[in-house]
């Protein structure tokens, strides 16, 4: 087994559950997310020679997974990957306040929040997955934090 295949297998072993949970916010169910993750890692293995190593492997595989998920939803091809996803909590009734606060975010910010808190992605991984700089991700997350804090605080005060 070559080094890239070994790295992909290690990534699968370490990050499968966070990847599935983050992707489930895009696909709408854990089962479909699982199928997409399996397909994504299979594609990653098959196309591993195309991985240049200039970005974190997790980001490269995530982009494949997101593409697989959006392909299964027949997304419009004109949109960039991260802009065509409209992620949401699987069970919003379990935390309605958080679900409502998240819905106020733009889809792109919501996806970045899910990558951060469901997918355990580092700033560098999110930046590579979204093809932007780490600074942009830091700024985006800071704004998302501000919006979420405002929404959650308002809800808490109203209670």
């Amino acid at each position: 087994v070559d080094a890239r295949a070994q790295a992909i297998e290690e990534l699968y072993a370490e990050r499968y559950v966070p990847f599935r949970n983050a992707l489930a916010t895009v696909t709408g169910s854990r089962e479909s997310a699982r199928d997409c993750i399996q397909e994504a890692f299979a594609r990653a293995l098959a196309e591993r020679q195309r991985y240049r190593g200039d970005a974190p492997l997790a980001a490269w595989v995530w982009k494949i997974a997101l593409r697989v998920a959006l392909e299964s939803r027949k997304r419009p091809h004109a949109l960039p990957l991260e802009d065509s996803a409209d992620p949401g909590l699987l069970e919003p009734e379990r935390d309605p306040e958080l679900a409502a606060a998240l819905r106020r975010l733009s889809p792109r910010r919501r996806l970045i929040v899910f990558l951060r808190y469901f997918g355990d992605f580092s700033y560098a991984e999110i930046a590579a997955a979204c093809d932007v700089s780490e600074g942009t991700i830091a700024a985006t997350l800071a704004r998302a934090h501000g919006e979420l804090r405002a929404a959650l605080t308002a809800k808490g005060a109203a209670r």
Partner: protein
Amino acid sequence: VIDAIDVELRERFAALVDDADDSDWFEVRPPQRSLRTPLVIAAALALTVAVAAPAVGLPHRIVRLFSDAKPAPSPVAKAFAGFDQLTGTDPAATPREVLTTRTGPGETRRSGSRRPRAALSAARSSFDFGTAPPKGPARNASSACSASP
């Protein structure tokens, strides 16, 4: 303030996380094929080629055998060509009689008094164009049917 919201979000998202691990790496990576199957396929192909090649080549050899043969002598060629133009001949007649007897379209030559078996025997013995025709059918008929009264 950011750290506080970060901590709060971590806690709230952690409460929503599904920790069930249904991963299966062997489902991702199909099992490696052993070398046995390709070897069996290669051996079967080689055997097929070995058996089929002579069968495919044989008809060509047969065709070449006939096309490369020496042409027939001129008398034979003429005689065989003449057969195509004869109609209404008697199969019991000698080849020479058939060749020398002309019959019109729709006519049938009478075979005379010779018996068919004797006539056939005479025809067989006289088919060699280099020899003289038999003197008469009676001799051949008597030799061919010596047992008959």
